[in-house]
């Protein structure tokens, strides 16, 4: 009992309060969206708001239990937890599909999504694995094993299929980068086929994750700009040309930095990195543009155009996003007022899933830009708090896990809001702690409470 009290007093209060605030916003918005005049009570469990409160209650109860369990358990049993969730992910594939995806493990009327919990177990497994890896002694095998921990659940989730969750798993790569897991051994083993090149280390292998992310963003941008025309200095430039123009400009700025402010010692290396990155970027932009404009089949092209918002089809394939953006945009600066959402309310049903994946919509519509500033600030606060917590851990296991939690929440936050405002493709992933739904609420709560528990015991760790 003394220990319980101790744990609770050592729990990181700002993070806990932040999470509870998000839950409150969630209940509030679900109540507004799903309001049923025949069941006005907030606690009526026949309604979505009542159920949401029930889910939050269950989640917080589970969280409380987690605070009571010894923190060492996760480290000790990480493999077992990981294997059990993998098995669940296999089992779920044999379940009847709901909305076209075999994601639900149903027990009577209730169901859970193992994929939500796979995020936790993968994070734990990854944390343990990185903890036990000697960063200075990485080899091809250790890299492949690390990748395998992430890719195994990825493959199973992809089979459901659940593109959203698949995407979220890629957030772990950023954590690997932060921890110094290098793809160098892989790159070096590839370079072995070119006998003349001899490197001890490569820039590409070391910084593969941000570089790869940069390439994806660049690819996205070049597709986005493929059809448009710019007119910057009186010269007409097609979108890709304009992009190349900008890349060249940025490269020149970097060149200036390297020449005038860089360490002379690293000058040659930096110049090589810059030149190769620059050339690779040019190659990527031009090849993607060429493939998209000349080689892509019309249906693929139109699909991509839709996702990028280059083509309008407000009542067809683009229905959800168009409605969602209208709802968000119509909130204006101050919003329409609580329970005044006319587009995204479930009664009007213009925005499908406005209580789950699109819950950002009614919030934005009712509270306007002012409310959004508060909400996004709250998320950013929570994310930075998690990173702060991560950095104060003495144990690698704790730190990796904390970063994993942070990145998963960040991905959900960025992609979910992004798809509500036309910046990201419509992929069904929930907004953490706000979207209606038991599995995601429980998974996120458990995830954060494990973090809180680990954090509360950070001083007990000797290393």
């Amino acid at each position, binding site marked *: 009992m003394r220990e319980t009290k101790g744990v609770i007093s050592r729990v990181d209060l700002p993070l806990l309060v932040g999470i509870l605030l998000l839950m409150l916003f969630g209940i509030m918005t679900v109540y507004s969206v799903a309001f049923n005049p025949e069941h006005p009570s907030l606690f009526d469990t026949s309604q979505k708001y009542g159920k949401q409160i029930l889910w939050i209650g269950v989640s917080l109860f589970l969280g409380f239990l987690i605070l009571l369990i010894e923190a060492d358990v996760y480290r000790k049993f990480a493999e077992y937890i990981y294997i059990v969730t993998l098995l669940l992910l296999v089992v779920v594939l044999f379940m009847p599909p709901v909305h076209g995806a075999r994601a639900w493990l149903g027990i009577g009327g209730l169901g859970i999504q193992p994929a939500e919990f796979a995020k936790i177990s993968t994070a734990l497994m990854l944390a343990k694995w990185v903890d036990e890896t000697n960063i200075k002694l990485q080899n091809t095998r250790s890299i492949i094993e690390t990748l395998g921990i992430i890719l195994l659940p990825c493959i199973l989730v992809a089979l459901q299929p659940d593109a959203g969750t698949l995407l979220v798993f890629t957030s772990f790569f950023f954590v690997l980068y932060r921890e110094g897991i290098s793809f160098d051994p892989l790159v070096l083993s590839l370079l072995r086929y070119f006998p003349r090149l001899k490197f001890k280390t490569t820039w590409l292998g070391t910084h593969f994750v941000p570089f790869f992310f940069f390439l994806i963003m660049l690819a996205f941008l070049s597709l986005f700009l493929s059809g448009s025309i710019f007119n910057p200095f009186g010269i007409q430039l097609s979108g890709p040309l304009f992009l190349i123009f900008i890349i060249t400009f940025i490269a020149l700025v970097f060149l200036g930095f390297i020449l005038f402010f860089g360490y002379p010692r690293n000058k040659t290396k930096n110049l090589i990195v810059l030149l190769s990155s620059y050339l690779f970027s040019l190659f990527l932009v031009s090849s993607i543009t060429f493939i998209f404009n000349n080689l892509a089949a019309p249906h693929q092209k139109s699909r991509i155009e839709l996702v990028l918002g280059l083509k309008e089809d407000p009542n067809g394939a683009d229905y959800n996003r168009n409605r969602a*953006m209208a709802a968000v*945009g119509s909130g204006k*600066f101050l919003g329409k007022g609580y329970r005044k959402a006319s587009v995204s309310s479930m009664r009007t049903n213009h925005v499908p899933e406005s209580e789950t994946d699109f819950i950002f919509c009614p919030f934005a519509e009712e509270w306007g830009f002012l409310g959004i500033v508060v909400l996004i600030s709250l998320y950013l606060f929570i994310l930075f708090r998690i990173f702060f917590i991560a950095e104060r851990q003495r144990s690698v296991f704790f730190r990796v896990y904390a970063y994993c939690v942070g990145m998963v929440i*960040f991905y959900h936050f960025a992609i979910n*809001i992004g798809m509500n405002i036309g910046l990201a493709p419509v992929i069904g992933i929930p907004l953490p702690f706000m979207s209606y739904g038991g599995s995601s609420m429980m998974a996120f709560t458990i995830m954060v409470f494990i973090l809180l528990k680990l954090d509360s015991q950070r001083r007990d760790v000797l290393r």
Partner: protein
Amino acid sequence: MNLDNRKYLLYALVFITGVLLLVRLFYMQVIDDSWTRRATEIAEKRREIIPPRGVLVDRKNRKIVINKISYNLMMIEERIKNLDTFAFAKLIGWDVKKVKARFREIVKNEGIYKNPSTGKTQSNYRKDRPYPFVKDLSLEEITLIASRLTDFPGFYEEPTGTRYYPYPNGANILGYMNEVGRKEIESDPFYRPGMNIGRSGLERSYEEILRGKKGVRYIVTSATNNEIEPYADKKYDTVAIPSPKIKLGIDIKLQQYGEELMKNKKGCIVAIEPKTGEILTMVSAPCYDPNLLSGRKSIRKNYPSLITDENLPLFARPLQAEYPPGSIFKLLQALICLQEKEITPNTGFPCNKSVVGCHDHPYPSSVAKAVQFSCNPYFYAAVRRVIQPNKNKNVFADAEIGLNNWHKYMMGFGLGNKLGVDIDTLAQRDGLIPNAAYYDRYLGHHQWAFSTIRSISIGQGEIKLTPIQMANIAVIMANRGWYYTPHFVKSIGKKGKLKKYRTKHVTPIERRHFDAVVEGMRRVVYEAGGTGKEAKIENFTVCGKTGTVQNGKNKKNHSVFIAFAPIDNPKIALAVFVENAGAGGAWAAPIAGLMMDKFLNKKVTNKEKENSIKNANLMSSY
């Protein structure tokens, strides 16, 4: 390797993403309005409430135009999903072919236009607009259909008003309504496809009052287009304001009586209340039951036969037909001669049949007697003095001065121009009072003198008047020198009549000159040798003047009579015009008498006369 710096990459990623989202949201929510407009398009609907069309009552508050509710089955193509054409055709009682043809017809009726920006020819038809699919369904018909419309998304019922006329009279006054055309919809935001607009008569001229003011309701609709709740607590809603009740000067019973008298004849009766200018009755014979053109089904059925009828029932003769006035014109000639001091009330002229034909009658020793006998040579001699005033030695130049002076007087009686009755001006004619310029155009400058144009002195020749102008002459005589522009609408709600009809027009003739002429009019009816004895009624003194209008060689004369009664403080002034009937005293005078009897004595005692007129059929003489 310093891994610690790498955390800043993650921080930057999170921070930049957050800023990016906020910037994008700021743009969407605060700067860019298009999403708000899109949201309005999606979820907030503007529903217009069209008030019931205004009701018309007669001077005794009898309802003469009311609304009967009927229904249109409306269609919005965009919302039609998986239409089971067979089941739908069965529901509305059509065959499948007709249903398909109707879809094509709607598109075709909308027409095409050339898009100015693309140069392509496009249809005006829009899939997101409502169009009436089946029009004018009765309550019984729509209740059968409406209960099953949920099976056919894209179709819905909409009430529309059809006009109903409790009295089958006054069709040419009231006018009719028909569906608005595309141009009207484009030029006036009030109209939507399927709505009606006044096409003629008062329905047309008072359209903007009768239609009332639209109300608007803003509502929140669901994705399935159901109404969810009022938008913004009805903050922006406006109430529909129905038209105020429009009261007419018409006495519908008198109108009805007039139409009965004019049955099987061609011509008009126009009766006006002299002291107000309100039109009591305006009969245009032959006429039709206004209910024949109420509702689109009826119009489709009846309009073709009405428009092709050789007797022109749709033609509002009192306003649109121009006739030579004949002898009734002598009243004005007498007044002008008196005013110009060319004669005195006691001036006599011999009945010299060598200049112009006349009938046998005693010597017209005064103006009153000249009017009584309708002596042609008298007026020939008198008017000659006005038109040849001896102001110029050149007889042609003198005639020019005289005619223009005379013309000015005639214009002062409201002739030669539309009077401006409150029925749309297109349906009114000017009549014709020639001036010097007119004859110069046809005969050449200084090529004519009084002797050339002498037939105008007895209301023949070039002179043309509309029957409403003739009735207005009776009003001027009754009032001894002034009139209000004749009009139908007595009051609009509590606002009274339009200002235009509250302005008194005074003729350029002094009051004193009227006595002799009015005495002549009394003599026409009461004295031996008078031509209008048939207009006599009990209890009231009638003043009148007959006219027998020559009308080509082989045709019978038009019969004209204008009158007012009683002689002092007159209550009714009227003109009766019967085409090709013969002498004014034979047909127009008795009809005028019966009308005055009906109006002043409330009942007609001389049933014999009434029946002989009612049963007379002159249609064979046309």
